[in-house]
């Protein structure tokens, strides 16, 4: 009864946050379908012209392909490398946990421009001349997305108490590999999916590294988008909408693929973890 004042105060705060985040998106959508829009609050006429122009441009489609390729490769390679690394640290080297958490923070201190400077020095010549190629972009994306991967997986391991589950599996005759594959992995599946999705979204949206490291030699969607913006606001708005559709679509695909490979119990595991998972991928 005495909670109502705070509750309505909170509702106001929530509405404000929603507006703050939602209005730019809505404005972009309106702009993408606007024909004439000069001095009125809403556009005077609507058109799909910009969408048609966009999807008939082969450069856009190729850029989407490249973006998906590098983002998908980042997810796969990231999961394959980070999952065992996070597990081994969590399970056998608790003393190193702090160090790993710190390392996983480093990418925040290594924003795109900074990282690009370092990587260009290193790889423009020398034994591994991969500057300007798909590979340097892939490797740099793995660095950038390391915190999401590492933290989401470590949080999942903690949430299911993987240490005790491993012991239980071992006491039932499973060797470590069997215990990891049959017990730990299925139960952290929701965490792996979250980590994958987040990594995919971050890679797909990355601009600075793509621009500085590969630029015109491997044009990703973000590069094409940025260029479009200098040419026409309506076209770039349409591309932003396409981008949202792509992110939503590929998220659903990823979830479907990951769930399809799951056992009948994965829903149970997901449910048991739902709370903690949010923490995992929300960060």
């Amino acid at each position: 009864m005495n909670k109502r004042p705070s509750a309505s105060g909170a509702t106001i705060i929530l509405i404000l946050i929603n507006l703050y985040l939602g209005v730019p998106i809505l404005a972009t959508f309106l702009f993408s379908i606007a024909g004439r829009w000069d001095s009125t609050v809403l556009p005077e006429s609507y058109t799909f012209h910009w969408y048609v122009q966009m999807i008939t441009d082969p450069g856009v489609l190729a850029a989407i392909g490249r973006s998906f390729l590098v983002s998908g490769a980042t997810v796969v390679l990231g999961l394959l490398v980070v999952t065992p690394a996070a597990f081994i640290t969590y399970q056998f080297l608790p003393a190193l946990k702090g160090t790993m958490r710190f390392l996983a923070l480093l990418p925040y201190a290594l924003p795109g421009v900074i990282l690009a400077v370092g990587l260009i020095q290193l790889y423009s010549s020398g034994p591994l001349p991969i500057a300007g190629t798909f590979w340097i972009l892939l490797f740099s994306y793995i660095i950038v997305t390391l915190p999401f991967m590492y933290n989401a997986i470590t949080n999942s391991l903690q949430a299911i108490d993987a240490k005790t589950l491993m012991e239980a599996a071992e006491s039932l005759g499973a060797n470590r590999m069997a215990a990891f594959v049959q017990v730990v992995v299925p139960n952290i599946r929701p965490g792996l999916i979250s980590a994958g999705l987040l990594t995919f979204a971050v890679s797909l949206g990355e601009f600075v590294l793509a621009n500085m490291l590969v630029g015109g030699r491997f044009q990703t969607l973000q590069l094409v988008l940025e260029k479009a913006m200098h040419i026409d606001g309506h076209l770039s708005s349409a591309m932003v909408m396409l981008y949202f559709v792509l992110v939503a679509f590929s998220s659903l695909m990823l979830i479907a693929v990951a769930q399809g490979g799951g056992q009948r119990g994965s829903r149970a595991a997901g449910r048991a973890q739902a709370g903690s998972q949010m923490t995992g991928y929300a960060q």
Partner: protein
Amino acid sequence: MAHVKIEGLNKFYGSKHVVKDVNLEVAQGEFLTLLGPSGCGKSTTLRMVAGFETIDAGKVYLHGKDISGVPANRRGIGMVFQSYALFPNMSALDNVAFGLRMQKAAAGTIREKSVKMLAEVGLEQVMEQFPYQLSGGQQQRVALARALVREPEVLLLDEPLSALDAKIRIQLRELIKDIQQRHKITTIYVTHDQEEALSISDRIAVMDKGKVVQLGAPDEIYARPANRFVATFVGTLNQLTGQIVDGARGVLDVAGQKLTVPTLAGKSGQVAVGVRPEKIRVLLNGAAAEAGEVALQGTLKSAALLGTIVRVTAEVGGAEVKVDVLNNSRLPGLTPGAQLSLGISQENLMVLE
């Protein structure tokens, strides 16, 4: 030959010596409990037997064979954890079947054995359910079935009942004891709860600060504790502190009241004697102490019903003395402040060093 033999076991966490030279032998089919307060090293000892902690010094033998270096999954042990540790992605049945699948048993055998084991713990109705759909007590039953279905050499239980409610705790400890006896399985059980340890064990090893301080049958530990720690940790104990006033006959002066304790003969100075609450008689209607009994005069403080017993608290010379009587006795006139005469058989007075 002992089924499980623990020899000179030691464990350090950094510079902390948490398990100090523990030696134990567990016979085939015996139920041994490691009892002690938290941090006494009992769980660490169990986990070294299981193979989950490395052994800093000492050996663990199974049937005379040194298994100290054998990985946990090849030791032939079954383990039950305080947190149940069921696999969240598997149904109760699949949890139980997991160990048999690891043995690569035939699918039909796996199912048959698993269902039978689940029925034995009373869960045939819920075997298709997932852990999150089961209560804590049911989850721990699944964990027990899962550990037993492989017919392990030794069953290890690490505080299996600590996370459960009081009522469920008692039901489940009876189930564990029952199944243990039916399967005649060698069992090592860890708990901090002395009543649990007393009720369930063939023998108890009381641990304190990393050491086994007493090893014996429950009634032995209870009636003849090796030291003051055991006497107070296992069971309830009244302590009477006084001055020896007649060293020859062993007469103790407790707040002006003289107690003759033959076992104190030859001692002097300040000493403490202990007596269990159920070994004290309330002397009614001015009845006198019998031969071989000492008598204490006190004032009734309170009488609390605990269920099957009524705990009477009396004040004797500034100290509290607890007397347990069965809840079927008639104790007339027990109003706080009443004068109370208590009789204690001399043989029930333990001298506390």
